[in-house]
């Protein structure tokens, strides 16, 4: 490849990859100046009542275990909040436990990590591997656990939002 073409190709490639990384990355950490407008609005409705949840989910409550809070204490709202992690409850589903960990900065949801996802078989594992990143992006955009279920992965979605809600309830106090 001729040198100018090679240089241009490398530049365009790097720019594209950076853009792709930005697209797939969580929103930037909030600073103190950001008004807590996007504060957590802990929903009272059970996640099973979301539009795409199957009707049989309503009766099947699923055992919600104890909530564990991370060691970092909730910081005062006036200073720049240090991010803290809160583990959600492990939610039982027919296809295995679902548990997530939320990273909070003040009242802002900074990130969600899955600690355990449905794994009863290979299919549910690949489904949850596909659903979890979508749910994470939805949660980060909505700044709440009230998000649409990923079609085809209703149990995973349900467990994910329940575990997340439990974590938010525990961490948002």
């Amino acid at each position: 490849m001729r040198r100018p073409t090679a240089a241009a190709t490398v530049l365009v490639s790097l720019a594209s990859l950076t853009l792709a990384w930005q697209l797939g990355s969580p929103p930037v950490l909030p600073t103190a100046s950001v008004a807590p407008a996007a504060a957590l609005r802990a929903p009272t409705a059970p996640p099973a009542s979301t539009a795409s949840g199957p009707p049989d989910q309503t009766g099947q409550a699923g055992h919600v275990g104890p909530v564990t809070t991370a060691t970092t204490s909730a910081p005062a709202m006036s200073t720049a909040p240090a991010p803290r992690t809160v583990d959600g409850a492990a939610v039982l589903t027919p296809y295995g436990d679902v548990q997530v960990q939320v990273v909070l900065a003040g009242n802002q949801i900074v990130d969600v990590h899955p600690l355990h996802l449905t794994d009863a078989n290979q299919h549910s594992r690949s489904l949850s591997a596909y659903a979890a990143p979508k749910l994470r992006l939805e949660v980060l955009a909505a700044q709440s656990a009230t998000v649409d279920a990923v079609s085809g992965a209703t149990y995973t979605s349900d467990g994910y939002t329940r575990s997340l809600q439990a974590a938010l309830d525990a961490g948002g106090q």
Partner: protein
Amino acid sequence: MSFPPSSAVGDRRDVIGGRGPTRPTASVASVSRARRRRADALEIAAVAVVVATAGFFLAHGGGHDLASGPAAGRLVALGRLTGLLGTALLLLQLLLAGRLPWVDRTYGHDRALVAHRHLSRVALPLLLAHAGAITVGYAAQDGLSPLVGWLVEPVRLLSGAVPDMLTAFAAMGLLVVVAVTSVAAARRRLSREAWHVVHLTGYAAVALSVPHQLSAGSDIAGHPVTRLFWLALYIATAGAVLVFRFLLPLVRSLRHTLTVEEVVHEAPGVVSLHLRGRALHRLPVRAGQFLQWRFLTPGLWAAAHPWSISAAPDGQHLRITVRDLGDHSRRLLNVRPGTRVVIEGPYGAFTAERRTRRRVLLIAAGIGITPIRALAEELLADSDTPPGDISVLYRGAQMETMVFRCELERMSTDAGLRLLMLTGPSGRGSWLPLQHAAWGRDDDAAALHHLVPGLRDHDVYVCGPAAWMDLVESALRAAGVPAAQIHDERFTA
């Protein structure tokens, strides 16, 4: 200047008085520029495929999965990325070896295959890393230690609810077999035919890997744009391979119905096969190119062999000239007129299209004279070529065994070819006969300047044994010939 009488034959009119530097004609230069533009376009397309693969992965949050979260999840993300990149490179490998006309005319068949081999050294490790990282990552998510998980997880994957895992495992196994049989040590022990049959199963390996990627691949399932990208890549690759690797050779073999017309003994152990076919003016073959020839006769039909045409095509006949190099080429000496011939090709970029200057020096050794002889004929046929612009430097052991001696001498007297036939033993580290090396004070570069006045202003085509070509090309570069003016084709595959 005096040439030893035994080694130089032919017209040397322009040796006396030399010439000033010649400029390439406009058309010659623009063809060469077009080739470089084509190379740039192909390379940009290849880079774009790899960048798009990584870009889609990152855009779906893959970078985040890779950089944060629990170790097991990061391992799985690594497995996803290596699998995607490995597959993209594998498809590029198929395209490089798929006899695509654009690739062939731009890089030449030989260099495309070298790139194919280089890519395999990246693609295969990536795919092995993919299998390993996904297996250990899933095992860790199941709470198994890597040591146990490595053994247990494949069983769970295969017996799980995803049937596509079976084909994926088979694909990986096939690819490993293809790679192992292509390692130099294994190639020496395998016949070319056996290796080729094994190598063709690489197509099956790629096909078997498609289902698990589309169904289980979390980066593709549910992402319509990514899915479209991969489907397009697969369809384009499969289509190109099908058309150029299989259909086009079939159509050409059926259309031209080549048959052996005459077998001529040229020298001890060397025969020329004259072939006749229908509508050969429609076969886009040029001097310097080669085809894969398959003779439909007992003992020969199973293997196709690459041989250059040894005469410029005239639209009705083709000629190849073959030296007995053992196994199949020996049986060729006994091929009878009337034998049907199946072809693949023409392939190769060792043609006058590479030319950047008006003056051309063609250097050949041994049976390497075949494409050189055809090139000389085509270049001399151009009525714009002044006498003496085309030189042939032909290195052989002794005059009597040098093929095409009479034909070249006729080109010299009739068409103004500068013909230098050099014979006799070489000195150490030299490719020239001892008496020539002596004038260059043991320096091949100086001797070349002596033999070919205005050397730097020539395009130089080199064809011969690989070690000999290395010596010739280092002498040419030492003599100041720019690399862009040195053309060769190397057959090692």
